[in-house]
């Protein structure tokens, strides 16, 4: 763990300098140990791929004190009782919602069905949440369907769009501008003001995409 100043009331802890499952698991374990600590005066905890950003109350701690507290409290070792929660996300992969499926099929030399199978046959790790409320960065997609971002971002990507950028995949929790390749749509709310947890996803969870029919999508409240 490498502690670094971030601002007058924040710091960042680095667990490595690459995107890997090993580092991500350290971040997850450290994040869980911090949450358990439930420490007064720790205001924000933002886990990401290889770091955890922390904002603290400077009326309670100065920088050295907070670093000392964290060094003594954080563990990166896994706790056996940590359930690896798998969140299922049902996706309708039709071309009318999968705006880039045809283009990806041409570029990859794979049929649309093959792209769908490859995307929905894998368990993805939630590496980070950011960009928009509930926007989870999931990795890694199979190299065969890895696809660079669009050269020009779309002005409006529909809510629930399931997308790919390089080896990452994600769901747009709300309509937003964006440059990821769109392959389908889900009716699942990724940021729900009525849910206690607000988002079904958290760093350290796993995600499984399931291919569903248009009828199922519509019956779940999906909008074309």
């Amino acid at each position, binding site marked *: 763990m490498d502690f670094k100043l971030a601002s007058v009331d924040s710091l960042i802890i680095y667990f490595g300098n690459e995107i890997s499952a090993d580092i991500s698991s350290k971040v997850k374990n450290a994040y869980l140990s911090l949450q358990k600590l439930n420490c007064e005066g720790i205001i924000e905890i933002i886990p990401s791929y290889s*770091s955890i950003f922390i904002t603290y109350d400077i009326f309670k701690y*100065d920088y050295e004190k907070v670093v000392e507290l964290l060094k003594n409290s954080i563990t990166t070792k896994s706790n056996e009782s940590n359930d690896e929660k798998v969140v299922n996300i049902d996706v309708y992969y039709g071309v009318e919602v999968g705006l880039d499926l045809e283009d990806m099929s041409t570029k990859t030399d794979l049929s649309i069905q093959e792209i769908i199978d490859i995307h929905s046959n894998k368990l993805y790790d939630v590496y980070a949440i950011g960009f928009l409320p509930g926007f989870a960065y999931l990795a890694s997609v199979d190299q065969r369907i890895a696809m660079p971002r669009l050269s020009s971002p779309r002005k409006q990507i529909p809510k629930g769009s399931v997308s790919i950028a390089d080896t990452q995949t994600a769901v747009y929790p709300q309509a937003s501008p964006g440059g990821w390749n769109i392959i389908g749509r889900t009716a699942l709310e990724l940021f729900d003001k009525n849910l206690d947890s607000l988002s079904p996803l*958290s760093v350290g969870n796993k995600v499984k995409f399931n291919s569903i029919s248009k009828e199922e999508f519509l019956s779940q409240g999906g909008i074309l």
Partner: protein
Amino acid sequence: MSLEIINSPLFATLQDQGRFSYTHIGVTNSGVMDEYSYLVANKILGNKLDTNIIEISFSNVEFKSNVNTVIAITGSSCEFFINGVSKNTWQSHNIKVGDSIKIGKILEGSRVYLGVKGGFDINKEFGSNSTTIKENLGGIDGDRLKKSQILPCDTFVQSHNTRLKDTFIPKYENELELRVVLSYQDEFFPKEQIEKFFSSSYIISNEFNRMGCKLKGEAISCDINGIISEGISFGAIQIPSDGQPIILLKDRQTIGGYPKIGSVLSIDCFKLAQAKPSCKITFKPIEIKEAQEKVREFYSSFN
């Protein structure tokens, strides 16, 4: 009992000190851009310091009062009229049912704050009234204030007006020195680049909003191109590949992937919030210990 908006404001939002402890799911802190003006308004009104307020940019908002209450205007110097009569900002004013309140042109600075005694009675979302338009959260329907909207508030009468001492009313100059805590990726910036950063002057560009402030001037280069996306603080100074610094403000994204040379002291970001495009910016380093003392002093002065 309420204030009613009777024209179409260009850009006015309901804000408070911000929304905390939701950044792990991507929800930004948001909150007033200029906490000094905000805290003074609440102090003048005898409010709790986290009471909501209206943040007005680009001038011209008119209200009709449907309540007897007390208001205060702080922030930029601006044209301010009650029933067509010009009034002082940075002090409390009794308002009666039927009164018209008009914030006209902004003369110096760029954000005006209008607070009422007791605050506006509007439901909070995740503990805050702060409006974040891109997240569709807070305020009224997660959006800017619009014509005909009703802002409920309670009845109050104050027997005498409270006014901030003139010496504490800020002047908004066209030059600003911002104190910077070297942090984040500073070690990846060569020494001469850090020297260049502190010895150059920059100009605020037109890309200046609640998310951040992009500067123009000497390009700063970094030994690394991008970084793995990580949490971003209020005031963080990103250096994208064009070398032009971007200071991230209240509506910043929670995580991002540009190298950062350091962070502007929060209390200096409040001054930046009142600056305008073309304002000259210089940076000065400050050690963390002193920086924390200065920020503690700032907040302690309101208690």
